[in-house]
């Protein structure tokens, strides 16, 4: 067995005539946070629920903490924390009681008060779950998944339906888990979330992983050009930089500036050509910007959205 916390090879799952997962390969290493990013229906939840031991698979090899999740054991469950896609809390129990209840199921649970602090619900500790806001309920959900002190945590769309400030709070909480040395596999359909939280991002589309890399390196640079843009006075002759980059476009606005945008696969050399041309022509370049393809650009291209 490899040292990976999660190892998936050729995973397949079909529902009736729908192929939900069509040959997924993925390894997640200890203490790594990996995000599976994709639109609804990409097969994210099916994949995660197979890893959690909730669903059978139709093909492929899967190992989670060295165990085949199709044959879950209590000892294995003791090392795993699960946050399901929908919030699942007992509405009549308080934050502290909910955590106490689940803490009783594990061999070496964390202190309930410590978990309350980790998920930032100190002020709500005595509040019944039904009275919490949506964001607070989700944080209690994560607290319940943490109370058994698991090595591996699954978070299925932890912030779907949140307003931006609740999402930001949830992100900070998940980012804080890094300090606990947990391995985290999360699914999301928010690019920013994957970018903010994950060490590596797997983009999933139509049952396959179509890209897997760090958020910085995601996207194929030979296919997705870097954009260099700058402004020069309107009417400037651009003949001196003809042929620089693979694509060029420019437009003039009513402030008397011409904005030039150049798509290039050789950003360093082309930037040198542009600045050289500007100095030789004694031109003042404004708003110079070099922009790599955003995760959003990559995501939209890869998922054909």
């Amino acid at each position: 067995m490899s040292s990976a916390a999660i190892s998936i090879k050729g995973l397949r799952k079909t529902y009736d005539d729908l192929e939900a997962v069509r040959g997924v390969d993925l390894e997640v290493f200890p203490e790594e946070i990996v995000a599976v990013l994709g639109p609804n229906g990409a097969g994210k939840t099916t994949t995660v629920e197979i890893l959690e031991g909730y669903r059978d698979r139709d093909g492929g090899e899967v190992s989670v903490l060295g165990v085949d999740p199709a044959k879950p054991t209590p000892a294995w469950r003791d090392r795993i924390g699960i946050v399901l896609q929908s919030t699942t809390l007992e509405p009549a129990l308080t934050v502290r009681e909910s955590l106490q209840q689940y803490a009783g199921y594990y061999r070496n649970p964390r202190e309930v008060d410590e978990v309350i602090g980790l998920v930032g619900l100190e002020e709500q500790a005595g509040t019944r779950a039904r009275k919490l806001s949506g964001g607070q309920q989700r944080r209690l959900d994560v607290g319940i998944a943490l109370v058994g002190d698991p090595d591996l945590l699954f978070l299925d769309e932890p912030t779907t339906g949140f307003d931006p400030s609740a999402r930001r709070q949830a992100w900070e909480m998940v980012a804080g888990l890094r300090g606990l040395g947990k391995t985290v596999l999360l699914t999301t359909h928010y690019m920013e979330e994957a970018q903010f939280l994950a060490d590596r991002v797997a983009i999933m589309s139509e049952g396959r992983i179509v890209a897997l890399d760090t958020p910085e390196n995601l996207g194929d640079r030979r296919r997705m050009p870097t954009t260099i843009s700058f402004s020069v006075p309107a009417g400037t002759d651009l003949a001196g930089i003809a042929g620089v980059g693979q694509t060029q476009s420019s437009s003039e606005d009513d402030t008397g500036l011409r904005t030039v945008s150049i798509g290039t696969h050789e950003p360093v050399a082309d930037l040198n050509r542009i600045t050289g041309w500007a100095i030789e022509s004694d031109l003042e370049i404004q708003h110079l910007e070099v922009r790599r393809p955003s995760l959003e650009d990559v995501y939209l291209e890869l998922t054909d959205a």
Partner: protein
Amino acid sequence: MKPISLALHEFRFAQKVFWRNPASVFFTALLPVLFLLIFATIFGGDQIEELGGVKVTTYYIPAIVTLAVISATMVNLSMNVTIAREQGLLKRGRGTPLPPWVFIAGRVGNAIVISAVMLVVVTLIGKLLYDAPIPWERIPAVLVTLVVGATSFCCLGLAMTVIIPSREAASAISNAITLPLYFLSGIFIPENEIPEGVLSFANHFPVRDFFEAFFSAYSPKTVGAGFEWGELAVVAIWGLAGFLIALRYFRWTPRQ
């Protein structure tokens, strides 16, 4: 020892959840008492010649105990376990190291304890308000009937979750099953008012047998220890059928 203490742990939280749910408290704890007061007021005072001259109020004590036990077990579990399933709580529980049977045992234990509490409450109200005798000499029969009945109706409640598709449908389905049987089995209306054919039809269902067993244990006219082994056997067979259905078809994941 560990699984037993875990079951007690679950039981404690099931108790908390039960007493904090106004609907459970009303339907399980208060409604049977209300029924007793209403029926005893409307039909009380007379004696039932067919049953050896038992007072109607005395008749209603085992009848309402039967209803209270069925409410605390079958009705309570079928509704609350279905709701927990649809909320995803059962699914989440399956994702923890907690053995599945412990999860169920905590809730079944809660239902049985509430049944016992209701039996005591109804019996005491009968004694205090209507001078219905407490059957001290037949306590063993009362307890055996309670344990066999409560356990069997818990199994039937778990089996009912199999056919209840959603939380909205839970109370409709469980009322549709229990209310007619209460009428037909002599729980709401004294059985001397019910045609013989109806009673023999009701005899096919465990509510009637459970009530007959409680009636023998409670009735001051009973001669002997008051055990109705034949009726208890029918109740237990229904319970066993429910247990097998639940074992085979019980769902841990939401249907919707």
